[in-house]
């Protein structure tokens, strides 16, 4: 328990120093940052990073000091005074062999110790999330203890605070890589393979993740959000996600649903509880609750959604969603319907 407390203090102290540095250097949001850790894995790695940086800085200073001292030393004297053989040999042996060997031994051990945290086996009953990378969005499934899919969403992952979450990482088309720097390092998603990883958030918050393996045209716009919630809030969110979409309870929404079901949307998208069962694009059953559109490219506002439906290529050129032409009334009803899917 002491270690937790130390870790907490440490990260608070570092957090303060960092936010100062952040303000000084640039206005980075810190929501996708490896040095603003919010979970145990990222925390250990960030700690390791600062230690390495300190040691590296010292080594750099030493080498530069020796270089400048050595080069300018002779300059002030009338005669050149090269090192004797013994002096040279000692310099090379001590700074070129003994020092690197010692530093590297320490480094390798420290790295392996840090890696033990990263590769820690999780308890069998840990929450498991299966994430499938697509060009250019994320399919997310929540699994129960028997590894059956119980809920499906896209481009947004909710996790309970303080609990480790096991990740099953897959891809169907090309290689992607899953990364939430505030919480953990990245793991590739390789077609034909299942990689595993884990992450955990120590405090509630929202963190951004992004694909970090070049995956084609819109690699830059393949991001997602992770929302860490207190356990109770998470459980109720998950329970809602497991439900099919509620039937529309007013005429506008009913019209919106009719527009949706009559459109080409259903070829690719699913809304559970209706006959829209498309599987090649994000599941929209609880679409209204999501923060963003097009894999965290734009906010999920009414205006953006309208733009996205009418002209997806204008927002994210080259993505696989075709434009849909709709009359203004139909569009308006469709927007209402989609945003009602909470």
């Amino acid at each position: 328990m002491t270690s937790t407390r130390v870790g907490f203090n440490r990260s608070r102290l570092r957090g303060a120093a960092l936010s100062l540095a952040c303000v000084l250097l640039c206005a980075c949001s810190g929501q996708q940052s490896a040095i603003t850790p919010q979970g145990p894995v990222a925390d250990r790695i960030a700690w390791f990073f600062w230690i390495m940086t300190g040691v590296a800085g010292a080594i750099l200073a030493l080498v530069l000091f020796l270089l400048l001292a050595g080069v300018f030393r002779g300059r002030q004297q009338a005669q050149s005074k090269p090192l004797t053989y013994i002096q040279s040999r000692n310099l090379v042996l001590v700074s070129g062999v003994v020092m690197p060997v010692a530093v590297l031994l320490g480094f390798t051990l420290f790295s392996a110790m840090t890696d033990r945290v990263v590769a820690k086996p999780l308890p069998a009953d840990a929450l498991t999330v299966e994430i499938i990378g697509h060009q250019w969005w994320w399919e997310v499934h929540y699994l129960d203890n028997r590894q059956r899919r119980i809920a499906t969403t896209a481009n947004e992952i909710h996790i309970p605070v303080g609990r480790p979450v096991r990740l099953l990482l897959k891809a169907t088309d090309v290689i992607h890589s899953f990364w939430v720097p505030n919480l953990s390092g990245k793991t590739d998603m390789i077609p034909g393979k299942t990689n595993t990883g884990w992450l955990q958030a120590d405090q509630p918050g929202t963190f951004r993740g992004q694909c970090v393996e070049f995956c084609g045209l819109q690699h830059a716009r393949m991001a997602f959000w992770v929302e860490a919630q207190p356990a109770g809030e998470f459980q109720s969110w998950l329970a809602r996600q497991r439900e099919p979409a509620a039937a529309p309870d007013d005429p506008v929404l009913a019209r919106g649903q009719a527009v949706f079901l009559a459109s080409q949307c259903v070829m690719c998208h699913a809304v559970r509880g209706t006959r829209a069962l498309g599987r090649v694009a994000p599941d929209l059953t609880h679409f209204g609750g999501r923060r963003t559109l097009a894999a965290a490219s734009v906010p999920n506002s009414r205006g953006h959604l309208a733009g996205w439906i009418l002209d997806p290529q204008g927002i994210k050129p080259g993505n696989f969603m075709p434009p849909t032409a709709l009359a203004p009334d139909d569009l308006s009803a469709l927007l209402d319907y989609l945003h009602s899917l909470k």
Partner: protein
Amino acid sequence: MTSHERIQAIDSSEEIRLLTEVWRSPPGFFGWFTHVNQTSVGKRFIITGFVFFILGGVLALLMRLQLATPENEFLNPDLYNQIFTMHGITMMFLFAVPIMEGFAIYIIPLMLGTRDMSFPRLNAFGYYVYLIAGAAMYLSLFLGMAPAVGWFAYPPLADAKHSPGMGVDFYATVVTFMEISALVAAVELIVTIFKQRAPGMSLNRMPLFVWSILVMSFMIVFAMPPLMVTSIMLALDRTVGAHFFTPGSGDPLLWQHLFWFFGHPEVYIIFVPALGMISSIIITFTRRPIFGYTALVLSLVATGFIGFGLWVHHMYTTGLPHLAANFFTAASSMIAIPSGVQVFCWLASLWGTRPRFATPLLYVLGFFFIFVIGGLSGVMVASVPFDTQVHDTYFLVAHFHYVLIGGAVFPLFGGLYYWYPKLTGRLMSEGLGKASFWLTFIGFNLTFFPMHYLGLQGMPRRVYTYLEPLGWGDLNLFVSLSSGLLAVGFLATFVNVFRSLKRGRPAGDNPWDADSLEWGTASPPPPYNFRYIPVVMGRYPLWEHLKNQEVPVVTGIRSDRRELLVTSLLDAHPESRSKMPGPTVWPLLLALAVGIGFGGFIFHNIFPVVGFILSFIAIVGWFWPRQLAREAREESS
């Protein structure tokens, strides 16, 4: 060295006329295609390499323009992806390796005191293959169908389904071509270094630059074939439906293993020759023997070996077993030990010697600063857990530019200032050189140091844009502005190169009072390199000649045909005279035939067969002995 005869060698103008006539390259436009002399081919490699450096640099500036502000629309995503892919291909395949080979091809025979490379026609062939590959690559860019899959072209993204255009076909072909060119140069350099050193230049008297080129060449011989195999596999997957990398049947990771088994040594292939340049420059500008010759040689060799054991550290995030990955952490950090030994040997050599602060030495001092930072961040990313946070982010972009620009381009520019007088007979302007150095040095650090921070703040590589709320905008703008400064710095050197061609101070044979044999002949060297092949008595032959007030040489090599001296591998004991081929057009024809075979494969399956037949004809034409009878008569006499 046995020295029985000590007759004074007499220069007769008739002999010099004969030598010039025999070794001359034919003038004129058509003559250009028949050159085989190493000075001619080497210069072509160097010039072409710098042209590609400038092109790659322009691409980099375009990328920086695009990234200067969030959600910029200067370049569309497809074009941006093509550009960053081409930037990588250009810098790795079309600039870095060929230019190191170019300097080696030009300098090594001069340093060894010989008149040409072992296989001059093969040398010319390698150049044409390189030229064809580079031209094809840029043709694809100008046609808007360049590959957009990164220089590493991971399948399945690079397969026929996900990259249907011809870009990746160009990529696979060009890569294979560049491998051929590099392998040819490597074999030749090895054989030239083994068999054509001046008498007395035993292995332990070889200049360190020669050692570094020897190590580079051996690395090429073992690193490039796997890439050739894998790029051919990719081509087969794409064109005839093979399944090497198909998920489920083949394995996308097979590509990554083979690619990085080449790709990691590739970095050292670029970096090791630069180490040799640094040693040359330090020796010359301190005017003293270097400290730790043996340690430096062993470090070069060790770097060459260790370079092959590190490829997995490019694959830490692919889900490998952690124990194996941690083994590669230890292996990767081992490379820091030979690097440390070298850095401190150079420091010991510089210490207190009041070196001359000419431009080449400035670049070497700049190297120390930049390379040490790159090396330290390199050790950091060798750690598995840390790498999972910075892999494929701008931290990595910063790291490898520190290593490649600091470790290879800075020494290369130092080498350019250092050897330019040998190539052209004139010195480059020191004032402009120093200005260029400082601009480059400051511009470089301002451009790339902030990228470390961007990477830690989550910015991935290879993104054509980023959103404003992420807050990366200010720093990216700063980086983009700094890259302009860096570009001006490089530009200043190229201006210097052109201005000095006419206006530079005449250099004379040995403007730097250097020690190695390339400075023992005229600048630029005559077509036959040396009137007499010098005999070497120590590690620093010109200094020894100066001390002894005499130059021991070899006489009796025929002047009425291209002939040079072959010596033994270890001791450089004279063994035989070897007749060298003269100007010929066959290397060009063979390069074209191979080009038709590989390049045509992009369009139709019949072309490899056509290429095979044409290549066979070209090879027969190449080797068929002309004037059978005359040669037979000569031999019997």
